[in-house]
């Protein structure tokens, strides 16, 4: 009897290796931090080797990665859906832009304010929305994304209307000796690292366990004392907060906001980017950020006439080859390499 359970459990854990919860988990976690440290070192080195345009592109990858971290909390870890994540991104971007232009606040202060505004807005909208599930929730969040653009165009004295707002980018302090693009890149990198650590510690806390419980089995979570509406709303607000912070850095890096940068497509691209990157995974937001940044451009190169079609086909192709996203694919490849190495 115990022999047969042994076999089934082994077979089952072999089928779900992506979760990394096998006995070797501690080793995997250690490896993950080593890889993260190496990546960080490479990220610090990169801007001195690349031309400014590529540095700018990498900054944008980091911006999207921060936004996707938030979306990952909500979708990947709490199991809810949002088609309105781009709206909170826009709120963060506009909050920063308005504070910089109209209030002339020093730019580092715009980050906490933008994050806080997005958080409060997420809380306010999440409170009613998070009582809904599945498709209904998707529709409500989609509505948030849809009505944002006309709203931004409306309050012209504040938002600059359809023309948007053009701002001076944060200048590098003289002591750093960095060029503007490099400085912006390091700002984005600092925010991204802080956001990663914050998300990581959130998920490891009691609250993170509550989110996983809600995702995996709502009813069981509830009978264990997890207040569903409270934690779902909190997850929604946090996800909005990360989006808001990302939006703020976006404003720093681009130096320009306009309603047309934040149309519904942005929300949908972000969600697609996260799914392609890997839902609920550690590296998913970074891979998703790369995807959101570069794949539309690649699609444009492949076929100038119909970039949307190519973009769509690429998403389908990735999901076909890697149903658990690029993060899952990377994990699978690493494990098979490890297996080969072990055999030799």
């Amino acid at each position, binding site marked *: 009897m115990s022999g047969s359970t042994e076999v089934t459990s082994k077979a089952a854990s072999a089928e779900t290796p992506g979760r990394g919860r096998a006995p070797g988990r501690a080793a995997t976690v250690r490896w993950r931090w080593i890889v993260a440290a190496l990546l960080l070192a490479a990220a610090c080195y990169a801007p001195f080797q690349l031309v400014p345009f590529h540095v700018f592109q990498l900054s944008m990858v980091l911006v999207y990665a921060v936004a996707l971290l938030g979306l990952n909390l909500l979708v990947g870890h709490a199991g809810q859906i949002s088609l309105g994540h781009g709206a909170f991104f826009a709120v963060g971007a506009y909050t920063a832009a308005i504070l910089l232009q109209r209030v002339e606040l020093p730019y580092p202060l715009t980050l906490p304010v933008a994050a806080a505004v997005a958080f409060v807005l997420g809380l306010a909208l999440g409170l009613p929305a998070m009582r809904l599930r599945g498709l209904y929730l998707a529709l409500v969040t989609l509505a948030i994304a849809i009505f944002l653009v006309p709203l931004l165009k409306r309050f012209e004295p504040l938002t600059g209307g359809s023309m948007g707002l053009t701002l001076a980018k944060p200048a590098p302090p003289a002591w750093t000796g960095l060029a503007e693009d490099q400085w912006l890149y390091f700002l984005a990198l600092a925010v991204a690292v802080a956001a990663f650590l914050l998300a990581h510690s959130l998920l490891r806390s009691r609250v993170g366990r509550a989110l*996983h*419980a809600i995702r995996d*089995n709502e*009813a069981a979570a*509830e*009978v*264990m004392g*997890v207040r*569903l509406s409270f934690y779902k709303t909190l997850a929604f607000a946090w996800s909005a907060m990360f989006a808001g912070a990302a939006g703020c850095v976006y404003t720093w890096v681009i130096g320009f906001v306009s309603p047309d940068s934040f149309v519904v497509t942005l929300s949908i691209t972000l969600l697609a980017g996260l799914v392609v990157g890997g839902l609920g995974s550690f590296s998913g937001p970074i891979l998703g950020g790369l995807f959101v940044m570069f794949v539309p451009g690649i699609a444009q190169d492949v076929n100038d006439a119909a970039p949307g079609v190519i973009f769509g086909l690429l998403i389908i192709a990735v999901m076909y080859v890697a149903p658990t996203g690029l993060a899952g694919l990377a994990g699978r490849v690493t494990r098979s390499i490890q297996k080969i190495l072990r055999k030799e």
Partner: protein
Amino acid sequence: MSAFLEVTDLRAGYGDARVLHGVGLAVPQGEICAILGPNGAGKTTLLRALSGMVRVRGGIRLDGTDLAGRPPDALARLGVAHVPEGRGTFVPLSVEENLRLGAFIRRSRAEINADLERIYTYFPVLRKRLKQAAGSLSGGEQQMLAIGRALMLRPRLLLLDEPSLGLAPLVTQELFRIVRAINEEERTTVVVVEQNAHIALGIAQQAHVLETGRIVLSGTAEQIRADEQVAQSYLGYRV
């Protein structure tokens, strides 16, 4: 003197479909109460009503506190632990994470760790599987995990929904032996819903037979077991 768990004229259902039509029970503290009956009798609904998962009318009192109309998370805080039908395992999470989630409402880390140890003494197999994904456990192990997780709440009332479902007879026997041991050691009051009447009556002090939302027969476990007519019409075996 009123009983520890007192259910009076309990009515519940889903939308327009009424499932329970006035159920009454009284379970003294530290006893095991078995709810028997055919499919569709409302056994699961009764448990769901006790843990706040369906809307109810009527009275539910636990140690004098009114439970009716409270949401499930509030009831968990009051000490009601529900092991749902199908176990409610958090499949991708590890065994340990599942158990720790059971103690979600509790704060003291030291107490939680002590309780984990206590649960491993009841279910030694769980200790061996701590870091394994809960979904990779066998059915019996998952049921043990579900009961262990419920115990992490330090429940005053433990609700078990068909713990024998899909388990081999030997595993079921072992499981009920452990439930009995838990009941004796912790003085936890248990309400267990079962299709397998024989095994449930083996550990219960009292039993009720539910049919189409009403209790049609109540008594001590011995009385129910001795009732030939019950045995044939509801419990599906001859004594």
